[in-house]
């Protein structure tokens, strides 16, 4: 791996190496820029470092101190953050979905949220680029939305949990399909096809999962980028000429400074605004890139409610990737809804510890009740949504007065659902209950409170007054400061965001190349 001196300004220093930062580091390095990408977490080697043990694998999560409040405080950690090179893609569920085209103009076309400054047709191209880079295994024809090219690899075999989803959809007369997922269904290079170990969300130890760690990062290194792990960036340095000059980061027990001609923040929707706010100077007292006052605002998670039931036959839902079948019916169907936005739902495959935790936290089971319920584990079947939540300025990330192990002020995360969010959740729970009843599941119960994925807090737009960055992820205030992760989403849609984040990163890299050629950097 090529290494750069701190004193020597690199073209780009990227803070974060997940879906946004890892992808961008790769594409920028491939375009010939000098790149240093930093991550607060370690550079894991999955074949050696990952155990088949849920507790051990919590090392992948970002579990530093945070304060959560609001009417519906978020549960931070496993389901929405990662602290490792590769970011949360190291433990993501690999679900790789495209936005519904109309969502890029949801304010104008669907009447809610905000418009994106991006055109869906351009995004469609970048989605294809990412799908090919990850060798997504997906269905031959996708039932919803405009034509998309064939997925590079074929869909995996459905497990029994996915078959239950399919049966339910057939019974209710809606379409379903195999979930396009980023784990190999055929060999690729040195990687073996997926062995259906089922530990996907605890970190794939076989490298079949096409995370940023095993796809973009090796490409980035091959193209000359440096990956600096265990490097916690605490502050972006900005001078008096409205330019960023580099980043202060903590590594090997001391604070260091990396000079850079451009700084990219890709720390996901909590750490990105936290870093920008923590980098306030006399010239930028409200934090960097915050002339609009929107940094940290419009935080959006996605609703992640579930309906669970018990089948008479064995299901063993934990076999294989957790979400092998999906229906996006309620993302594309606008009739019969009393809410804005959409949701998809997928089959589920919780590992035993997660399942015991779910039974404890959602149903309060403990002792003999918990043990007796765990005896049904092999028969459990579940459906879970990824649902759109609307952007609200009151849902936000601010700085608390407490500091963390680096002496940095920790984020305070305020979150409350709005009425529309509740209506969407109610609709989904009622529908999924019907779907489970249709396949003769018994003891059906609802998990009412769960969320996933973090987006917003530095939205992109066409107007410096109402957005933090432009369509190229470039901040309006500081022209060599960029933000490239889920933070830039003006709306979240009802699908997992990772594919969109990576597509935006690929687009941003191409735009930067074009602008550099024109001398516009």
């Amino acid at each position, binding site marked *: 791996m090529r290494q750069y001196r701190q004193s020597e300004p690199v073209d780009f220093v990227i803070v974060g190496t997940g879906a946004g930062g890892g992808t961008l580091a790769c594409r920028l390095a491939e375009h010939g820029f000098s790149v240093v990408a930093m991550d607060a977490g370690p550079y894991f080697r999955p074949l050696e470092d990952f155990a088949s043990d849920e507790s051990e694998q919590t090392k992948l999560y970002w579990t530093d101190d945070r304060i959560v409040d609001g009417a519906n405080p978020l549960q931070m950690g496993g389901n929405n953050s990662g602290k490792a090179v590769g970011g949360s893609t190291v433990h993501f569920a690999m679900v790789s979905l495209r936005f519904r085209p109309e969502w890029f103009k949801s304010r104008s076309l669907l009447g809610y949220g905000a418009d994106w400054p991006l055109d869906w047709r351009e995004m469609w191209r970048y989605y294809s680029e990412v799908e090919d880079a990850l060798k997504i295994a997906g269905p031959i024809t996708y039932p919803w939305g405009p034509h998309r090219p064939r997925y590079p*690899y074929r869909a995996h075999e459905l497990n029994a949990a996915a078959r239950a989803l399919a049966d339910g959809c057939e019974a209710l007369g809606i379409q379903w399909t195999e979930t396009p997922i980023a784990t190999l*269904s055929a060999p690729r290079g040195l990687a073996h096809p997926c062995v259906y170990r089922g530990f996907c969300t605890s970190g794939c130890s076989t490298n079949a999962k096409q995370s940023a760690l095993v796809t973009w990062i090796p490409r980035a290194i091959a193209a000359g980028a440096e990956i600096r792990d265990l490097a916690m960036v605490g502050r972006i340095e900005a001078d008096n000429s409205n330019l960023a000059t580099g980043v202060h980061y903590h590594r090997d027990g001391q604070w260091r400074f990396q000079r850079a001609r451009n700084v990219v923040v890709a720390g996901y929707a909590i750490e990105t605004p936290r870093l920008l706010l923590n980098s306030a100077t006399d010239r930028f007292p409200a934090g960097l890139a915050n002339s609009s006052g929107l940094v940290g605002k419009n935080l959006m998670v996605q609703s992640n409610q579930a309906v669970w039931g018990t089948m008479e036959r064995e299901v063993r839902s934990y076999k294989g990737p957790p979400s092998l079948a999906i229906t996006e019916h309620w993302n594309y169907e606008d009739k019969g809804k009393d809410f804005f936005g959409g949701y998809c739902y997928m089959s589920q495959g919780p590992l035993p510890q997660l399942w015991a935790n779910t039974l404890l936290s959602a149903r309060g089971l403990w002792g003999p009740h918990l043990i007796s319920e765990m005896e049904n584990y092999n028969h459990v079947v579940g459906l879970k949504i990824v649902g759109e939540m609307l952007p609200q300025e009151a849902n936000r990330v601010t700085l608390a007065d407490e500091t963390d192990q680096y002496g940095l002020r920790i984020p305070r995360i305020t979150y409350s659902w709005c009425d529309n969010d509740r209506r969407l959740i109610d609709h989904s729970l009622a529908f999924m209950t019907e779907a489970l009843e249709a396949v003769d599941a018994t003891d059906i119960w609802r998990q009412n409170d769960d969320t996933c994925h973090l987006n917003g807090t530095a939205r992109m737009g066409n107007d410096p007054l109402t957005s933090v960055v432009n369509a190229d992820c470039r901040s309006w205030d500081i022209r060599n400061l960029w933000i490239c992760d889920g933070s830039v989403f003006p709306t979240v849609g009802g699908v997992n965001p990772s594919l969109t984040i990576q597509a935006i990163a690929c687009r941003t890299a191409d735009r930067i190349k074009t602008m550099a050629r024109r001398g516009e950097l």
Partner: protein
Amino acid sequence: MRRSNGVTATQIALGLAALAASSSLLDKRSLARARKYRTGEPKQAKAVYDNRILGGKLDVPATVTAAKRLNRAAGMLALSVLADSGVEHYRGSFKNKAMFTPLIVSAATLGVSVHGTADRRKAAHIMRDTTYLLAATTGLIGTCFHFYNVAKKAGGFSWQNLFYGAPLGAPMAILLSGLIGFCSERVRETPRGITPSIFDLPAGRAMAALTSVGLLGTAGEAGLLHFRGAFHNPFMLLPVTLPPLGAALLARTAAAGPGRRHPFVRWWMRLLVTMGLAGVGFHAYGVSRNMGGWRNWSQNVLNGPPLPAPPSFAGLALAGLAALGLMRDHPDA
């Protein structure tokens, strides 16, 4: 450290060269024979029993030679079915007792085929006849079973179920084995001086047509499953290109009428025999590409590409060769 995803052009060239070399080795004997045949002989053979071709086997009529070759082809197919259904039905835990049937029937078919290959007599054998008919019936019933298995799943005849349900085309292999064996008995029992025929069709050309259909079907099966593997290795294209070309050549042969020799088609059939046998090697490599490779053979043999499947191409190509041989030795066939 990255390895390129695709196989390099050099590897492909080497592979193709190896295929060509081994098929020409196979061809050596026939080339020698052809050379001998060409000296002073007209292009069209006119003798019903051509002693020069038969060389030392003067006592064995051409019909019996052809029948023995067909027995050999049926046996090769039966061996492929025995091994393939053994592995795959074991993988399916023999959940339905009927899943033992192809093992028993293909083992019996293999047995009578070996018997037929060694048998120089001119009469059909009741045991062989019965077994071959049983094999053909098993193939038909098995196909129905496999269709039922796919149809009952959610999504019916969707790609998902075609990829991962019971393979629709697989039982056809034992059907083909039975048909080829049955035809072999008809050719064998043809009296001297009479053109061997099957259901009033000239036997050589009828067999060529049957083999042509079989090759197409088998290529379809390989195509489906290699598509499932996203043709991630360019060699996976071989069984979906070479056999359909062979099928077309055989079909043309069947339609061309009596009394012709088809050296190029024969050469192509030998190429397919080589490809079918080399396929085992390719699939063995495929097994090694799964987690744990051959060290984890007990899982990966079940999980990886089926080792016994490619020789079914060899079996069919052998049947094609037998048909072509019969047409050469017996110009009216």
